[in-house]
């Protein structure tokens, strides 16, 4: 299942890119599972970006969700720090 990943702010900087397409294994159920998979199978930047799970937020198909949310048939998953607009 191909899914587009988007990274913002210091998540993007640590990973070194703003987006990529990945094929996560079907065994991954939640966004947190996806984050674990990325952190353990990719470079050091991913581990650094996802080191502190409390400072990580996510959106699935452009809707804010908790990390426990299911991936389901998501086409786009964004990972980023808590927002600081306004």
């Amino acid at each position, binding site marked *: 299942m191909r899914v587009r990943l988007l990274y*913002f*702010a210091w998540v993007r900087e640590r990973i070194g890119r703003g987006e990529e397409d990945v094929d996560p294994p079907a065994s991954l159920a939640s966004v947190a599972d996806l984050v674990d998979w990325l952190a353990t199978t990719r470079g050091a930047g991913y581990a650094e970006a996802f080191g502190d799970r409390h400072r990580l937020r996510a*959106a699935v198909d*452009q809707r804010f969700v908790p990390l426990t949310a299911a991936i389901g048939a998501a086409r786009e998953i*964004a990972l980023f*720090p808590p*927002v*600081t*607009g*306004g």
Partner: protein
Amino acid sequence: MIRIAVGPEPIDIAAEMELVEAGENGAVATFTGLVRSDDGVSTLELEHYPGATEAALAEVAAAATERWSLAAATIVHRVGPMRPGERIVFVATAAAHRGAALDACAYLIDRLKTDAPFWKRETRGAEPRWVEARAADDQAAARWSVD
């Protein structure tokens, strides 16, 4: 009328006021957030999540419009680099009476702070630094919960 705009252009308040006042209702409230100059920041940069940002802002504006029966709600947010004194965000509400306009204006800026995917990076001296989220913003947004 709901107006959402996200872009790198400076915010033109006279033009925005004209739009929000067009319905000729009695009351317009606005809030403008600016890059402060008193704490040594030389540049502020705003990153956002295109598409998701506009959707989140439209949802906040629609919720305010319904809750306070607004005639108009405007949210304009600048992105990209900006300098001290420049406007980051402008929100405006128009209603028949001032209580609705003022409350809805506070609601828009409180909810925008926690619900819209923007990230601030500020430069003090040489090093840019991502701004940390504030617990006070979560508390400010939470006070509008209706349940």
